[in-house]
Structure formats: C-alpha cells, structure tokens
C-alpha cells in the first residue's frame, strides 16, 4: 500500500472520481476545501471525538464471543460492538462527523438518502442534536417496509420525503437526494451514508468511520489473524479495515448473495457487477448489458445497494481485501447462533460478516483470532426475522 489513495482527482486507482452534473461541482469543491480545513483543525477533531464519546457512547467495546468460539472449535471470535452506538449502528459515527462539518460550513439544512432507514435515523438524530433542518429521501417501497424507522425520523423532527421514481428504493432515494442537493447547494449539506458518491465523500466517510479500526487496534492486544466486515456501500468495512491496511492481517469483506448468485437475486456487486458510474463515482455496479442499473436484492435492507464504495473496488483489484458472498439463509442462521450463544441479536447486515467468520473459524486454531465488525443491532430487523424464521425460532 505505497500509493496514497485517493489521488487529487479522488481516484482510487481507476475507481472513484466526481461524475456529477456541473451544478454540483462547486459544492464538491467547497466541501473538499472545508473538509481539509476541518480535518486539520484540532478543535474540530476534538469536538468530533467528544461527541463520539459523550453522545454516542464510544469507545464501543470488543466482546469475546467465547461460547461461539468454543462451539465452532477454531479461532477465537471477537466482536467490535458498533451495535452499541447511539441509534444502534456504526452509521452515527459518520453522521456526527458530517453534521459537525455542515455546521462549520454554516449550512442550515442537511439532506440524506436512506434505504432501511438506519442512515436516515442517524441523519435525523444529528440534525436534531446540532440544530439543522433535515430532509430524508426514502423510496415509497422502503417507507412501507420500514414504518418504525420512518416514525423515528419524524419524531426526531426530520421530514421524510417519499420517492416514487424508479424502483422506489435506495438508489432512487439517492438520486432524489442528489437532485435536491443540486437545487439547494447553497444552504444544504448532503449527508451521504456510506463510502460512496463523488469525491470527497468516500474518503470523508472512511475518515469518519476509521474510528472503528483505530479503537480496535488499541483495544486488542495483538493484531488479529482475520478481520471480517459486511459491505453494503462499504462504510463499516472501510472504517474497520483502513487502519489495518498496512498490518499483517487477512481482510475480508462480505457482500450479500441474497437467494444465491445463480438466482439473480443478490447484491454481490464485486463478484457480479461491472465497472460503471453510479452516484457520481466509477466503481463496480450491478447493471444490465446496456448499462441500466439493476435493482439488487438482499434480505438486509442495508446491503441491497447496486454499487460499492470505490475504495473497495480498488482494494479488491489490488487483492488487499478478499470479498465473499453470504446468502440470506446463511446470515439468518448466523444471527440465530449469535443470539443463542452470546445474547446478542445482530443486524442482519452484520450477520453476513458473522456468517463468514463462522465458516472460516474452524479452519484456524484456538490461539488465532478473528475480529468481526458487528455493525449494528438487530432490533430493527426483528420483524423481518419473524417473517423468515416464523414459528420455528425455538426449535
């Protein structure tokens, strides 16, 4: 990892960049300038860390999953507990950072996209906390599926704007958020929820999420043998991996292979996608032959994004990170195992990472260690799990 990424143009190798309408270029330049200024301001960094600590409850602990490790009979599994963040997932780390930046840039409004509603809740939360107006774009289909998160956002004072274009889900909500931003760049900050979008977003989100990996390095006595994280857009994984890129450790990202790659119902962007442009960035994405973006599928609303952060595309290409696929069923099984063995109900997203750990642990010895990023809690998914596991949960 000798090259510094991203480069001046916001490229990670051939990935990334700024593929946006001219109307947004100014806002991106402004953002980049303010971001660089803020990130080198001791006061800003301190404020950000203070809020992480006193508001979101960081550092999140690392829990040794002793029962699970014993059951698998291989490596020791450790869980980085991002589920213990305020609002229940790693998403808040980034939302706090961006919202503080928005305030520093004297923006009065934030706009965000959301799929399952986790990032929307995080955005609404920081908007309330830092006195910003907040609009969250959300597909009509997702609004229907995620009623409770919609209400949480409203309770937090945010306006949830239904998106009826396209497939009425995350990618369309993102388009709509960008459209809104384009029309309101002057007073509005676009708070993106993952390491996606045009430069400098992927870098900014990574830098606000790297606290996950930074803390882990301090908390663990030694570098683990493997680190595993799920990848939707890729922010929890980048946050976890980034501080470990130069270390001797296997890094494994896990995509959702949904009902199985062969069924076409999946969100396995890296294994099934082709190079293209989505939401302002060149990366891999799921698309048909002529380049129309395809709707991905996963049981977990946080993983069904048709693209992937450009830095992941780069890390996949360079081979530094290995990417695997986990199906709905494998994730559900892992979720059930962790619940019963350790009393932790993970988000279905996080259960994908866990499922991969469960596969790999038996191949290691008891003195080896796997660190799993438990990106969020499963409370938000209980309805979905109920539908899928049905009555047979206690058998």
């Amino acid at each position, binding site marked *: 990892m000798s090259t510094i990424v991203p480069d001046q143009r916001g490229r990670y190798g051939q990935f990334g960049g700024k*593929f946006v309408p001219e*109307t947004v*270029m100014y806002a991106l330049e402004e953002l980049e300038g303010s971001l660089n200024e803020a990130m080198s301001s001791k006061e800003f960094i301190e404020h950000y860390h203070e809020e992480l600590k006193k508001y979101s409850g960081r550092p999140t602990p690392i829990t040794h999953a002793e029962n699970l490790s014993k059951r698998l009979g291989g490596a020791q599994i450790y869980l980085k507990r991002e589920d213990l963040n305020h609002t229940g997932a790693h998403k808040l780390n980034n939302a706090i950072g961006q919202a503080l930046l928005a305030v520093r840039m004297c923006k009065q409004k934030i706009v965000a996209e959301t799929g399952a509603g986790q990032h929307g809740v995080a955005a609404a939360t920081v908007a309330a906390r830092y006195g910003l107006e907040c609009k969250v774009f959300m597909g009509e289909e997702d609004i229907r599926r995620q009623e409770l998160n919609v209400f949480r956002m409203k309770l937090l004072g945010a306006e949830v704007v239904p998106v009826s274009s396209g497939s009425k889900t995350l990618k*369309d909500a993102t388009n709509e958020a960008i*459209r809104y931003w384009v*029309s309101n760049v002057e007073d509005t900050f676009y708070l993106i929820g993952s390491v996606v979008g045009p430069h400098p977003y992927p870098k900014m989100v990574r830098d606000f999420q790297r606290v996950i990996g930074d803390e882990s390095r301090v908390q663990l006595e030694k570098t683990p043998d493997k680190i595993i994280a799920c990848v939707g857009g890729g922010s929890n994984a980048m946050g976890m991996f980034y501080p470990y890129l130069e270390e001797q450790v296997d890094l494994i990202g896990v995509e959702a292979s949904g009902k199985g790659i062969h069924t076409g119902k999946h969100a396995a962007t890296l294994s099934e996608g082709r190079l*293209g442009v989505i939401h302002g960035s060149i990366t891999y994405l799921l698309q048909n032959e002529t*380049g129309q973006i395809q709707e991905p599928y996963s049981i977990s609303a946080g993983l069904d994004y048709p693209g992937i952060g450009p830095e992941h595309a780069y890390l996949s290409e360079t081979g530094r990170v290995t990417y695997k696929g986990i199906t709905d069923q494998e994730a559900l099984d892992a979720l059930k195992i962790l619940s019963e063995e350790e009393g932790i109900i993970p988000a279905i997203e996080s259960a994908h990472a866990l499922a991969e750990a469960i596969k790999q642990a038996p191949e290691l010895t008891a003195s080896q260690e796997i660190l799993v990023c438990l990106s969020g809690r499963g409370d938000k998914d209980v309805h979905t799990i109920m539908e899928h596991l049905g009555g047979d949960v206690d058998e």
Partner: protein
Amino acid sequence: MNKRFKEHVENKNDLFIPFITAGDPEPETTIELALMLQEEGANAIELGIPYSDPLADGPVIQRASERALKNGMSLEKAMDLVPKMREKGLEIPVIIFTYYNLLLQLGEDRFFALVRKNDVDGLLVPDLPFEESGEWKESCLKNETALISLVAPTTSEERLKKIADEATGFLYCVSSLGVTGTRSHFQSSVFTFVERVKKQSKVPVAVGFGVSRPEHVKELKDYCDGVIVGSAIIRQVESQVEALQNPETQKEAIDQIRAYVRDLVAPFEKTTIHS
C-alpha cells in the same frame, strides 16, 4: 467543426434547441417529433437516451425515460434512429444526450463507430464534468463531434474560463441550480450569469433548464444566443402519450405539440419551414 453545427448553430443567435427523449413513447414518434421541431425552427435536436438513474433530470424527463425504457430503447438503438430522421429530411445537428454509464458500457470505440455510421453531430454527458472529459473530448474532435459543456451559476470564473476555452458546438448555461424542469420565472442573477458566460465564450451561449413559456424566451433573447427546451416539450408529449401511439391520432397529437412550440419560440420571430 461539424458541418451541420457550422450551418445551423455557429455564429447564430435566437437558437432553439429542443430536447426529446429517444423512444418516448416509441421510436416512430421520436422521428416525427424531430422533424416537427425542425419545421418549427429548431437549430439542433438534443436526443435524450433513457436511463434508469437520470440524476440530473427532473420528474418529467424521468418519466419519459421510464416510458422509453419500457419499450426497450437503448443508446445504440437511439443512435440508429438518426439516419431514419435524416432520410425523412432532418438537416439540423443531432446531439446525443446520455449519462456517462451508458457510454462506458457501450465503449468509446463502439460509440464513435456508431457516431460515424449514423452521422451523429454532438454529444452531451451531464455527469461527465470537465476534469474527466479529456479523453472523450479528443475522440470527439477526431470524429468531428461537438462535445457540449454545461456551466452553472456556481461555476467559478476560473473553471468557466477553462470550460469556455475548450467549448465546441455551443455552451449550455444552466439557468438556475437544480435539475431539469420548468419554472415560472428567472431570477435576475441568471442574466448576470449569462452575461458572464457570454464574455468568455467563443461559441454560442444557450440557456436551458426551465424554459417553458414565451415570456422566458423573450426575457432571455437579448442576453444569450438561444434557449434549450426540454421538460416543457416532454410534458406536452406526456399529455399526448396515448394519442401519439395511435396511427389515427398521431398527426393531430404532433400538431398539438407543434402549436405549443410555435407559441413558445414566437419571440424569436423565426422564419420557419412551414411558413
């Protein structure tokens, strides 16, 4: 420089550059619309390629995209429409308006092969900013294809200069921040902005985004070299979408749209083919 641009756009003013979505609601209509627009004085046609994620477009053009996609339109098929338009008498330049991903998937070589084969005159990629456009600009030059650039009120003086310096065909001024769509009035800042662009530009300067009423055209007329009209025309198409697909009512529907267009560009006092 492409000969059609030379003839119909270069050094001209009162330019009328309409946008239509290829294949909305089906390919035949697109051809007829292009011809009608030429008859009503269009100086060039922006032929929009439908895309699943048209993030620079407002709801009207999004819906047009969806209609066209449903009928199987693609970048390749859209370009194949151009010779058919020529056959029927289209003389003005045709500019392919497409999101970058579609270009990437088709590939540069295949795209320019089609440009040559189908006699396409220009290219506009709303999400390919100046910084990333170098390679495509070269190929465009090589293929005598205008690569239309956009500038916005937020574009810095420095950037504007760079963009204007390399502009070909015409310069597309985004009248306001925002996506395409129609608005009821222009802010005064638009005129200052357009004047700023005019000062830098060596090619004609056209204003787009929101032009939908004769008053708009009248207001803008003295500040720039022309207008681009997108959503306003597509909205007319949308309102006739059934009629356009019925052979018996198609002509009448097109004439309805024609009436709207004629009214819109009346302030230009064009000598149109029909008159």
